[in-house]
């Protein structure tokens, strides 16, 4: 046999020759020193290439896996269930606020979020600026604290998700740390207890020297927690003592013990039975009930869908958004209520002013034995005669105009910013994050604007920020509509033009936000999601192009 070609030798070096050819080459190589040397060189060359190709990214960070949404639901863990339970607890509160604002005939709390109501926006803008210049400073602390409470609640909900999935532990710890920093307390370290099925129980004779993070079906604290308590579950009961703050999200929350810090709670029913709260109460729920033996050291800020009953004393101001209010004890500062009725019962004593935003004067009842140190102000609004809007022709013309305006705006924006066409959330967890970002944006931008407006020099910044905010609110639902339309088309297995997706999505969204009763809540949720999408998209753009210190409105 003459010497094989280099191709044959190279194939042999790769062990790629069939058995017969390989045997033939081996026989030749045994006798030919030149080919033997060449084969050795080719094999060494392969090792050399393989070594150069070997992984050199040992320190590469592994990004989180973005689970596709279609099958994500099959792997929902207990943590998700907890997170959703917590949201479900907060949901009725939002629904309640939305509903009561309709019934109470107030300037509806949510209607100014309606991007299609330009008049409402203008009114809201003028009122906001007037408000900022007159009394923005006075309410600063409470509003800031409320915003902080909203952020903390979002963090806690997120922690529930993260802990349940047992992933992203560093991130979860980061979030807990954030919550702990925002809710100041004597915390020094952290103890985490989770039990997805059963109960987390701290017995009466047990003392936890750190901040306790507890997640379980039921969380019962009979003992002492020296730091903060962060508790998530179906039912949370605190009978013991917490030296720091209590931050909790659950279906029902009962606080019967002591908290030296503030209580931030989101629950369907939030009960304070004999609770001694050193600082503030921030409550979000359907019903919020503080018994006559309970005591709130500083302010109470509550959002309750149905009723707020404060039978115990409150050290300073009360701001309450609820359908019905019953105040039965001392309020050390001002009492401000928004709702359909307020009753000041027998022994009640309001040191400051009572301001009631209710439908008519008859909705304020003050018992003869109750006292008001300051003024009683009733801010009523004549309710327009309720008419069936769905039966008027103008309503449908209006809807068509809304649709057309939103469609044209959406087309323009999506054509100008093609990146937005692929913005969306890829999983339930991701959707959660997007909504949380939306919520934070919704809460934070006005607060930042207020802070800016308090200083005269910041007023242009505040106005610009609010304008961007309003534009964002208008675009929010359009973006969600496009996303919804796109998902529907993708389900159908077709890839269509973004205008088709927008057209379909907008039709659905406009119908959805106009549903009686549910529409307000849907409007709110969709706006949150859209706002979150826009902010996250903007953030990614900023991060991607590494523009330093860029602000996102």
């Amino acid at each position, binding site marked *: 046999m003459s010497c094989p070609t*280099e*191709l044959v030798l*190279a*194939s042999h070096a*790769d*062990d*790629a020759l069939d058995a017969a050819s390989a045997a033939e080459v081996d026989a030749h190589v045994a006798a030919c020193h030149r080919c033997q040397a*060449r084969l050795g*060189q*080719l094999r*060494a*060359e*392969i090792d*050399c*290439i*393989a*070594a*150069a*190709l*070997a*992984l*050199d*990214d*040992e320190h*590469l960070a*592994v*990004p989180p*896996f*973005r*689970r*596709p949404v*279609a*099958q994500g639901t099959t*792997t929902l863990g207990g943590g998700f269930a907890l997170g959703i339970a917590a949201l479900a607890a907060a949901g009725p509160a939002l629904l309640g606020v939305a509903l009561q604002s309709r019934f109470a005939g107030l300037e509806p709390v949510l209607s100014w979020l309606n991007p299609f109501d330009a008049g409402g926006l203008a009114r809201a803008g003028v009122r906001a600026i007037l408000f900022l210049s007159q009394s923005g400073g006075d309410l600063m602390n409470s509003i800031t604290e409320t915003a902080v409470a909203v952020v903390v609640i979002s963090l806690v909900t997120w922690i529930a998700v993260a802990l349940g999935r047992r*992933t992203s532990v560093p991130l979860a710890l980061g979030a807990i740390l954030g919550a702990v920093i925002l809710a100041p307390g004597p915390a020094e370290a952290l103890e985490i207890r989770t039990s997805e099925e059963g109960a987390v129980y701290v017995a009466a004779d047990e003392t936890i020297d750190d901040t306790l993070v507890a997640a379980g079906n039921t969380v019962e604290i009979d003992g002492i927690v020296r730091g903060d308590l962060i508790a998530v579950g179906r039912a949370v009961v605190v009978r013991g003592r917490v030296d720091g703050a209590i931050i909790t999200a659950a279906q029902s929350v009962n606080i019967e013990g002591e908290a030296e810090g503030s209580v931030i709670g989101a629950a369907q029913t939030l009960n304070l039975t004999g609770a001694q709260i050193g600082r503030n109460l921030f409550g979000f729920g359907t019903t919020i009930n503080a018994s006559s033996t309970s005591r709130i050291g500083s302010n109470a800020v509550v959002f309750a869908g149905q009723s707020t009953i404060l039978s115990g004393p409150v050290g300073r101001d009360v701001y309450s958004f609820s359908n019905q209010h019953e105040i039965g004890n001392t309020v050390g500062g001002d009492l401000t209520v928004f709702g359909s009725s307020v009753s000041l019962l027998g022994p009640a004593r309001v040191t400051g002013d009572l301001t009631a935003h209710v439908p008519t004067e008859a909705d304020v009842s003050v018992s003869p034995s109750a006292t008001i140190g300051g003024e009683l102000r009733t801010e009523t609004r004549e309710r327009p005669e309720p008419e069936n809007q769905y039966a008027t022709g103008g309503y449908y013309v209006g809807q068509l105009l809304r649709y057309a305006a939103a469609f044209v705006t959406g087309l323009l924006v999506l054509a100008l910013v093609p990146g937005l066409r692929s913005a969306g959330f890829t999983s339930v967890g991701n959707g959660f994050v997007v909504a949380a970002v939306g919520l934070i944006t919704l809460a934070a931008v006005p607060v930042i604007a207020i802070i800016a407006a308090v200083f005269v020099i910041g007023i242009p910044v505040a106005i610009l920020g609010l304008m961007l905010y309003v534009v964002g609110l208008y675009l929010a639902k359009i973006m969600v509509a496009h996303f919804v339309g796109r998902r529907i088309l993708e389900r159908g297995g077709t890839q269509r033009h973004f205008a088709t997706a927008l057209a379909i999505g907008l039709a659905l969204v406009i119908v959805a936000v106009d549903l009686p009763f549910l529409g307000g809540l849907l409007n709110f949720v969709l706006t949150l999601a859209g706002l979150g999408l826009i902010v996250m998209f903007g953030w990614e753009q900023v991060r991607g192009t590494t523009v330093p210190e860029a602000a996102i409105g």
Partner: protein
Amino acid sequence: VRVDFDALYRSHYRRVFGLCLKLLGRRGEAQDAAQEVFVRAYRAIDSYDASQSFSPWVLSIASNHCIDRLRRRQREPGLFDDPEREMAELAADTPTLPELVADGERDDALRAAIGALPEKHRLPLVLAYFNDMSYDEIAAALDISRNHVGVLLLRAKKMLRRALAGTAAEHCE
């Protein structure tokens, strides 16, 4: 048996990303591709036999996905359509890589040279020597003949030798 997909993801991501990077040559695209590979694997997890190793299964998804991406990147459909010309270009013996470059600087120079190879030569090289695929497997993945795989590999090596001959001249002479 339920598969702990998150654990598999964490333990195999680097390898899959490495393959995507070496095949695609662009870091950003490789990150997207690696995510897409795991999404595909996640969707097809029912077809994965848990008694077998996960690595070859996910790497085959990765190589197929990257090849698809490269084909889409090419305007012309035929990425590998002229074996005869390749064959004719294979010249006589030249010094092999280990003879050309000293151990110290070899890997970096070689890595750079591999990165600079045309796609049609880089692909089979990476599949063969990073992904340990046989000629038959590479031929099936690239939809070319087995013989053509051998030609492309040898041609790729010759191009590397030529690229490194310059480096060798600078360092050794």
